[in-house]
């Protein structure tokens, strides 16, 4: 569980992002935010509302509509000593910046053997269930998690957002920070006051249990927790791990839990084939195969290009809490 300092304040995910960014701007004059509509509009989710007035247009930069340069210019700033936080308006629009993220940011330190570094954060809202149709719903973590040199974080609660976004901003290497947009206003919780950092690369056991390990991240952590709590009433004990960091991945927490429960269910919204669940399953199959009492199961998005706009299509793509509950029950009973 996250170490939480004495004083906390209740807020939702979008407020946690907003306040953490605000603190970073207030505390470190090298920090700037750049992206589309982050200025007068205050970001399309109003995350940076008021920042332009408070910090000025040199630090809150409404960029031209060009993602490769948003990230590319931020890389140059980072190499030259600034602390840029680049925003990609929706994760679906990150593809044009792929070269700068994968080819450049992730390799700056390596290719120069440390002569130059790239302390850069790229924030972007991802995920579905918000009627975002084909191009405002996508999950992108599996397109990046294979890339050495990058870190990828996808927290699910306001406290984890504060702790990990602070860590990302203070990290000396590039971090892709993924925010599930459906959790923005849906998820609330206590957030520690003051400087609060959580280590990147540590998963969090959000609920302890003994009969099954569930690993998830983002929106589905909350549904998995709901499902697990419902099953408690039936005497079924499920442990729910919030991965939080996708790269580096917390091998120890997962293995420890699986060795205890002897069963593993991985749940993610992103398509199944080649998704983050593949690496989790592969790692466990390599390290703890004989500790398992059931096949490793992945409950994930179907392998179609995207959820559609129609509610029927969106619902078919997304995994409901009852479906999670059924999968948990089945595996426990295996």
């Amino acid at each position: 569980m996250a170490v939480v300092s004495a004083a906390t304040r209740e807020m939702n995910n979008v407020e946690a992002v907003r306040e953490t960014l605000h603190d970073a701007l207030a505390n470190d004059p090298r920090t700037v935010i750049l992206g589309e509509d982050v200025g007068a509009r205050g970001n399309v989710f109003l995350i940076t509302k008021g920042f332009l007035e408070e910090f000025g247009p040199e630090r809150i930069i409404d960029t031209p509509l060009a993602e490769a340069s948003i990230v590319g210019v931020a890389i140059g700033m980072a190499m030259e000593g600034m602390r840029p936080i680049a925003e990609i308006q929706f994760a679906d629009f990150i593809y044009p910046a792929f070269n700068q993220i994968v080819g450049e940011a992730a390799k700056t330190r390596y290719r120069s053997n440390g002569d130059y570094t790239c302390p850069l954060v790229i924030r972007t809202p991802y995920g579905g269930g918000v009627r975002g149709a084909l191009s405002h719903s996508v999950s992108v973590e599996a397109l990046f998690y294979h890339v050495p040199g990058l870190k990828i974080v996808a927290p699910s609660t306001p406290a984890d957002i504060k702790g990990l976004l602070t860590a990302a901003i203070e990290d000396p290497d590039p971090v892709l920070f993924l925010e599930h947009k459906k959790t923005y206003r849906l998820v609330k919780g206590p957030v520690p006051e003051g400087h609060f950092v959580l280590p990147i690369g540590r998963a969090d056991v959000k609920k302890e249990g003994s009969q099954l390990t569930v690993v998830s991240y983002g929106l589905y952590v909350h549904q998995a927790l709901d499902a697990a709590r419902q099953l408690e009433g039936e005497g079924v004990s499920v442990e729910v791990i919030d991965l939080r960091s996708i790269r580096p991945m917390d091998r120890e927490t997962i293995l420890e839990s699986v060795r205890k429960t002897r069963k593993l269910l991985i749940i993610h919204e992103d398509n199944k084939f080649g998704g983050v669940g593949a690496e989790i399953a592969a790692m466990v199959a390599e390290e703890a195969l004989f500790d398992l009492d059931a096949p490793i199961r992945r409950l994930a998005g179907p392998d179609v290009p995207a959820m559609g706009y129609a509610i029927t299509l969106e619902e078919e793509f997304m995994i409901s809490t009852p479906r999670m509950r059924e999968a948990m029950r089945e595996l426990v009973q295996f």
Partner: protein
Amino acid sequence: MAKAVTAAATGFERYGLSDDQLVAILRNMLLQRTVDNRGFQLNRQGKIPFALGSEGHEAVQAGAALAFQRGSDILVPYYRDLGLVLGIGMPILELLLSLFARGADRSGGRQFPNHYTNRDIGVMSISSIIAAHVPHAVGAAYAIKFRGEGGRAVLTTFGEGATSEGEWHESVNFAAVHGLPIVFLCQNNEFAISVPQAKQMHVKDVAQKAAGYGLPGETFDGLDPLVSYDAIRRAMERARSGEGPTLLEGKCARFLSHSTDDDDRTYRSREAVLELRKRDPIASYETVLLANGIVDQARIEALRREVLAATNEATDEAEAMPLPTQADLYRNVYAGDYEPWQ
């Protein structure tokens, strides 16, 4: 004062158009505004989660639609092209089906509204990724030229914000090198969501960008449908006759917020919007037609009633149709049957 009104005052240039064509332009503009408003209305009624309006773009799109040769030219549009697709023959019903995300929608209820596709009338499918369709338009123009299909051209459209994207640049350059039959039409409304043109580029006119590709560039009054028609027709004819690409820029306006998800009060004043609205292209054009005796007020009213009736009919028809089924999620991933990884 709006330029179109000035034109009316100083002499009426009809650009070789018949009375019927002049009236058809007005009808197209009225229809666009009506369907546009219908989207917002349905959204306010809670019937659909999203709509995106084109108010202020009616003139440039009506002009473009008239310059487009049906059954021959190809359109690679952008999401604000409601009037343009209506003007070249897309049934109103299709737009309503898309708003309601019905199964019979051409995208099968998959795409956001305003993401047009209709192979039958030559409208190529687009995604939401700004400028990503521009290379496709260039590829289509290559195909036309490659097959020696003289007399055909591609029209592709985008906002001024899109011209900042690398893919836009690469595409225009490719077309220029190969002298392809294509017209790049920018609808410059001076905003990309909240970002004003001055933060988007360091030139006054998008058409200035043509110089870097060795292409002709032309800026015109996109609030005047006749001026727009004339500029676009000339560029399309250049393209059709093998003289290569043109970069056009119609200066227009966005009267509404970017979409129902946006609230433009956060970044522009009501006064500024009121000022913009004084140059309403429909009002201006009506004034011109009235002043020159092409229509009378009764005719305009009749047109309004007609497009409203057509829109109502399409709305009812679309609303009554079924949503896609859950099984539809798995269709058309690849050709043939497809079994997702289980």
